[in-house]
């Protein structure tokens, strides 16, 4: 649906994008990740035709954004970082204006607007002036704007920034609900968002693509080693507890972390694909101690992300 090839963007001396290529398949929700200033917004601005790339190409639904901008833009609904709203219009006037510029047929207009207002839940705000709306509502009007004309592709630049937790959950639900009819690119630096709604992930850092794959690719890299945190308490001392843990079958390594009141916290690492939790329980019980907490540590998307992003500068120095 979307093909991005060797995108380069220079602002004077600053290299904002350095040869980014990826594609998004129809019906996919792509999480576009990267730290602040990585080039997420720049990529999205190029993708939607707001600015032009120094070199490289973007095609949406087979239309090149430079060669046939009108056709390509018809397929895209864009919610930029700051929702593009005319302060002096009411929600209704504004959305009708959007219908006009996206040339939505008059017959469909009312039905479509009613539907969109229902989806983003701003029906009761339709006669309010946009300048009097709260941030959360403005964000929704911005999203409504992107949905007008029922575009096949939605490009959402940090759609949940500045919203309260309840609104964030609502917007995420909304995005998930849209997945059936749209191809969505969603930029964010909130990682739960990606695990919550996305099917694929692209990570960029300093204008370069550093990782890409499906969400499960990223999170299932764990499992090679089982790690968990254990907290034990009892009359026996620290060394007894450590000995008990170490003696359990399948345990590879035990590290003492810290003491908390009368309990000890350890990091335990086991052999691959071995569940040692029962053994650990018995061993600790035999030593006359009690387990207060046993918590597996998975490799989360967050750790993955930090790994990838931290690794990058080292790589570029090697080049």
């Amino acid at each position: 649906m979307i093909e991005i090839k060797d995108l380069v963007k220079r602002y004077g001396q600053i290299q904002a994008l350095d040869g980014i290529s990826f594609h998004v398949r129809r019906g996919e929700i792509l999480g576009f990740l990267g730290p602040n200033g990585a080039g997420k917004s720049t990529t999205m601005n190029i993708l939607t035709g707001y600015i032009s790339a120094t070199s490289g190409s973007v095609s949406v639904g087979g239309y090149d954004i430079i060669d046939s901008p009108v056709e390509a833009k018809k397929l895209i609904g864009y919610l930029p970082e700051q929702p593009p709203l005319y302060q002096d219009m009411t929600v209704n006037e504004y959305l009708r204006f959007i219908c006009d510029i996206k040339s939505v047929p008059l017959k469909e207009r009312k039905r479509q607007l009613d539907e969109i207002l229902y989806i983003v839940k701003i029906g009761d705000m339709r006669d309010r002036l946009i300048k009097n709306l709260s941030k959360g509502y403005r964000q929704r009007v911005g999203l409504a704007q992107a949905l007008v004309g029922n575009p096949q592709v939605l490009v959402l630049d940090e759609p949940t920034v500045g919203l309260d937790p309840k609104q964030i959950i609502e917007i995420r639900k909304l995005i998930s609900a849209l997945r059936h009819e749209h191809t969505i690119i969603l930029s964010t630096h909130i990682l739960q968002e990606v695990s919550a709604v996305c099917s694929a992930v692209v990570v960029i850092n300093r204008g370069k693509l550093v990782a890409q794959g499906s969400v499960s690719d990223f999170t299932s890299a764990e499992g090679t080693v089982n790690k968990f945190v254990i907290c034990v308490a009892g009359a026996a001392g620290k060394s007894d507890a450590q000995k008990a843990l170490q003696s359990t079958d399948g345990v590879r390594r035990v590290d003492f972390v810290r003491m908390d009141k009368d309990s000890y916290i350890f990091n335990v690492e086991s052999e691959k694909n071995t569940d040692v939790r029962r053994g650990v329980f018995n061993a600790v019980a035999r030593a006359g101690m009690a387990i207060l907490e046993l918590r597996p540590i998975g490799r989360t998307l967050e750790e993955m992300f930090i790994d990838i992003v931290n690794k990058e500068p080292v790589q570029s120095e090697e080049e």
Partner: protein
Amino acid sequence: MLTIYKRELASYFRSPVAYCIMGFFMAIVGLMFWVNNIIGRSPQFADTLSSLGVFLTFIVPVITMKLFSDEKKNGTEVLLRTCPVPMWKIVLGKYLSSLTLFTVMTLLTALFPILIVFMADDSSLIGSAQDFGSYIAFILLGASYLAVSLFVSSFTESQSVATVSGIVALVVLYFMQSIGNSLGGTTGAVLKWFAPLARYGDFTVGSFNFASLIFYITFSVLFVFLTYVNLERKRWN
């Protein structure tokens, strides 16, 4: 294009800008009318209208100042550039909305010549043809000033910079004929040829100069086109 035009025009009348400009302009016209036509006992409104030309140098930039800077302020520039409407239509829509406001503003002053008709003892003294010609000339002059001012404002994102630089550009343009006269030679002739004000007189004598009409239209189209080029260029920076 019609959509952009309608939105911009509505936006003028939603804010106090249009009313302020019109009120201010009418006050000036009223004053000039008093001085020229009442105290000066002249039945010719054409003279009054032509003396208003100098005020356009700062009224026109105020009309065009918000056309691009407001888009920047609202963040709606993104919307216009990513919607499936070609840029030239957006620029033209904006220009035509400012031209409409200007024309409405100018036509409101027709109240004064109508007043003269009612007050006149001897209607043969009234130069209706001259008055009519002046109105055409005034609107054409305004159209060319608006285009220049729009072009200047497309360079900046700030409303105040747009206004001030627009005034500077129009003042230069206003005096271009006199500068041309004092310079003389080829440079002077070229400057004079390009000065919109130099052709104003072609209409006020009550005749209709087709070449000048074409000049004004071409001049305006050229600057509207340059505005479009400038905005397209920005996309690549």
